[in-house]
């Protein structure tokens, strides 16, 4: 139950929020830290306010899919850990985790952010497959943006492991200098609609109060690679248009923080 639902709704109408933020402000601190796990090929921790997620990249050598024999692959998985919220329970992924994973996946996949052809070693036989696992550590709202940011940061920090030339076995304990072939930097931003106002970076209470949301993944050029509408109420085309403008602006803002954090 959301105790402050009424208040949040009324405040939104006058461009205000319960925690005093402006509608288009992210919470602070907004931190991105990479190389947090020595066992992952790439890893990152993202904190937005009290929300914390970790992401880890693992690489493996596998047989390419039959319909794309000259390409590697990518898989994204989200675990909403029971450690991160009293609302999450152990067990198979909930629909929330599945949607989150698929939206982050499409943002990266459809932008062709990773050059999958460059992951191929021997067509039809062997290619690199990239798996990103996103773990919620403290869900205080806006896992969508945090997960997208953590995934991209983990991908950017990843290095290929050493492969034994004779046996073809991967030595995961040794990393090479080579990083992943990234072509673009798509970041998803989710805009929420409460009482006809649009806002970013919701708290859990704001998420539960919102009538609609739209996630827009966009790259540095403003190209959109994935969208996902959620929530119970419809959005007008005019609203979608304003949401896209806002999402692209915030995507650039987050990309700037990411670049700075990786320096």
């Amino acid at each position, binding site marked *: 139950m959301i105790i402050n639902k009424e208040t949040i709704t009324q405040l939104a109408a006058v461009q205000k929020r319960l925690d005093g933020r402006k509608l288009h402000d992210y919470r602070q601190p907004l931190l991105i830290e990479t190389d947090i796990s020595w066992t992952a090929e790439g890893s990152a921790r993202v904190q937005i306010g009290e929300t914390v997620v970790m992401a880890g990249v693992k690489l493996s050598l596998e047989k390419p899919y039959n319909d794309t024999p000259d390409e590697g692959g990518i898989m994204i998985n989200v675990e909403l850990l029971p450690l991160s919220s009293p609302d999450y329970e152990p067990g198979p992924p909930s629909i929330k985790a599945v949607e989150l994973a698929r939206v982050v996946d499409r943002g990266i996949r459809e932008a062709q952010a990773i050059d999958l052809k460059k992951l191929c070693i021997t067509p039809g036989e062997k290619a690199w497959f990239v798996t990103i696992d996103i773990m919620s550590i*403290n869900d205080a709202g806006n896992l969508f943006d945090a997960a997208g940011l953590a995934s991209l940061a983990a991908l950017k920090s990843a290095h290929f492991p050493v492969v034994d030339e004779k046996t073809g076995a991967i030595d995961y304990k040794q990393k090479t200098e080579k990083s992943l072939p990234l072509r673009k930097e798509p970041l998803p931003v989710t805009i929420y609609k409460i009482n006809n106002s649009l806002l970013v970076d919701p708290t859990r209470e704001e998420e539960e109060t919102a009538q609609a949301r739209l996630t827009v993944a966009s790259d540095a050029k403003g190209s959109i690679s994935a969208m996902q509408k959620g929530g119970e109420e419809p959005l007008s085309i005019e609203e979608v248009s304003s949401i896209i403008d806002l999402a692209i602006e915030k995507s650039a803002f987050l990309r700037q923080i990411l670049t700075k954090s990786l320096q």
Partner: protein
Amino acid sequence: MVYKQRLDGRKDDELRPMEAKAGVIPNADGSASFKIGKTWAIAAVYGPRELYPRFLQDPQKGVLRCHYGMMPFSGSGERIRPGNSRRAQEIAMVMTKSLEPVVDLSSFPNAVVDVFVDLPQTDAGTRCAAISAASIALADAGIPMKDMICSVAVGKVDTKIVADLTYKEEQIHEFNPESHDATVADIPVAMIHNTKELTLLQLDGDITKEGLLQALELAKGATEKIYQLQKKALKEKFLMGEKQL
């Protein structure tokens, strides 16, 4: 004896560098982060809260329930499939058994106290790090406890009795070719701090009774170091408030 100097240069009774923090997960009722070398455990406690399904409830006292999970990217080899493996289930069970003796849930009939531990990176000693983290998190949550549980692995590499084995020491044959006929024993233990009684005792490998008793003697000093760190983490939380991971 071929194993004269430990692979990472530590003294026999020396633990890897450690770091502990309490109150790292705002959503949880109690939480902790515990690092020992490159092994990292994060623990969160939720409860006492109502236990469902109801047939699991105990009308006499609350139920302690531990959960253990290595993150998919936390193994030193291939990705680990998420989900409850047989190994994770067993570790969760021994964690619960190792913490139960000091936790008093008699005031919370029909309730459950859930302890979730997840590990972002590992290098041996994960169940011990998980238990040491869980003990801090339970205390942080204000769960009635009569003592702290301090956990660390001890063991034997070749003829040397050592504390806090690394993955390389557990797999010494792979990393030190001269030690092909050396034997290794890995003994994860958890101790009640004041009484030095054991609440976790497992053993993998090859060791004599004398060797085992020597290792358990070494464990007293090793768990004392864990205790001092746990105490420091809790004090810092209550003096300075919540911490970032």
